[in-house]
């Protein structure tokens, strides 16, 4: 076990979520934000697939480790993380995928024994914001939410269809998976078909949520775990992919969003990053909570771009115990994604395939 550095920028940090295709994971954006804030310590990418584009970002990562999928369980992942610690300093592990959160929650004490910290929500908070429980959480705490039903079978979907669908047929019903995926259903037949598809991929239950006319905001938040909001950056998507994922966006200064973020983080006593998906209803101008994702969004580099670098703030809070007061995010800052070709030597793929590890830069063992 190595001793922690005095400055978070010298810390060894591992980040997951290396997929960087048209529906990217947040890992590359998190790594970029850390480097931009002056992080110069060991930066490790944890990858599930050797063809994830983040793996080849040698200007960001010192090393890449292949890790077992969450479905392989905590022991398999912990074994791999022990190797990461054995090869060099590791002070903070920053998972960025929804499906990893529960796993890392169970590992946080083992990681701490190895000298690596995490900055995660507690089980209660994580469970309260789960897609299957969010509507109930909102009702209890007085937040607005679109009509939502949790269904466990095709039969129950048939039963609630009339109640959940738009009587005028102008809005779809979103059929959502427990972790990922949402499809627009305009008819019961479509809804039943999506139920079968999505539950086969992600399991049960399925969430059926009525679409409402309006537009969407997203807020990247960082909570301190004691009810306080360390920072929040609101954004509106300007361009989306065919899957509805943000391709470009702009930061906004709507004060009600920060107020809602503050209330939400306090109600959940949320620790760590999360993304609020909020709908502004067209007629009433009311803000409705659609989802809370328990990690940084893939667009989180916009936080750094707007002057409030939340990934860096997380590392600082987790390792130094404080982040100082963050500057307010500037509204009117635009981001746009771009597809870039990365050239890499075959040796990297060979190394990842054979040993599950690629080292771009030499990292030194910190003195105990």
């Amino acid at each position, binding site marked *: 076990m190595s001793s922690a550095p005095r400055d978070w920028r010298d810390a060894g940090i591992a980040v997951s979520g290396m997929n960087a295709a048209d529906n990217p994971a947040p890992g590359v954006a998190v790594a970029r934000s850390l480097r931009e804030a002056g992080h110069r310590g060991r930066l490790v990418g944890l990858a599930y697939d050797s063809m994830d584009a983040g793996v080849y970002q040698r200007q960001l990562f010192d090393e890449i480790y292949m890790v077992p999928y969450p479905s392989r369980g905590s022991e398999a992942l912990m074994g791999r993380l022990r190797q990461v610690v054995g090869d060099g300093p590791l002070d903070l592990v920053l998972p960025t995928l929804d499906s990893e959160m529960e796993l890392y929650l169970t590992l946080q004490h083992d990681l701490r024994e190895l000298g690596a910290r995490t900055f995660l929500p507690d089980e209660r908070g994580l469970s309260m914001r789960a897609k299957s429980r969010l509507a109930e959480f909102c009702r209890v705490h007085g937040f607005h939410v679109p009509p939502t039903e949790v269904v466990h079978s095709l039969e129950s979907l048939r039963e609630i269809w009339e109640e959940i669908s738009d009587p005028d047929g102008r809005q779809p019903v979103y059929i959502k998976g427990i972790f990922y995926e949402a499809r627009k259903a305009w008819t019961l037949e479509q809804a039943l078909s999506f139920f079968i598809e999505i539950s086969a991929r992600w399991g049960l239950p399925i969430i059926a949520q009525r679409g409402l006319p309006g*537009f969407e905001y997203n807020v990247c938040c960082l909570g301190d775990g004691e009810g306080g909001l360390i920072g929040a950056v609101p954004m*509106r998507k300007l361009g989306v992919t065919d899957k509805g994922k943000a391709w470009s966006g702009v930061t906004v200064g709507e004060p009600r969003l920060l107020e809602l973020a503050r209330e939400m983080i306090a109600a959940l006593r949320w620790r760590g990053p999360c993304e609020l998906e909020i709908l502004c209803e067209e007629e009433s101008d009311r803000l409705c909570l659609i989802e809370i994702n328990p990690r940084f969004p893939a667009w989180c580099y916009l936080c750094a771009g707007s002057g409030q670098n939340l990934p860096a703030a997380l590392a600082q809070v987790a390792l130094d115990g404080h982040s100082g007061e963050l500057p307010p995010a500037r509204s*009117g800052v635009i981001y746009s994604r771009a597809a870039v070709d990365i050239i890499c030597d075959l040796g990297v793929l060979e190394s990842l395939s054979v040993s599950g590890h690629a080292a771009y830069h030499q990292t030194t063992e910190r003195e105990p």
Partner: protein
Amino acid sequence: MARLDHLHLSPQGFLFDHHSGLSFSTNSTGAFVLDLLIQGLARQEILNRLVEDFDATPDQAAFDLDEFLALLRQHRVLPRERREAEA
């Protein structure tokens, strides 16, 4: 009338709404009206300024102004309270 400080208007007529994240482009007359709206002037004051500064009859100016305000409401550039006050 309250100032609309969340609206940023460039001299070229580019408008950015810091609350909604939407942006618009307008011509010089639209920019003239928007500038006065941002300063917090009421409809009648804006109408007077239009008649003073542009070669338009009060009726024509009122017609054009109301059409423009309706367009701003449609795009949610004018906040709800202002929409109600105008109605």
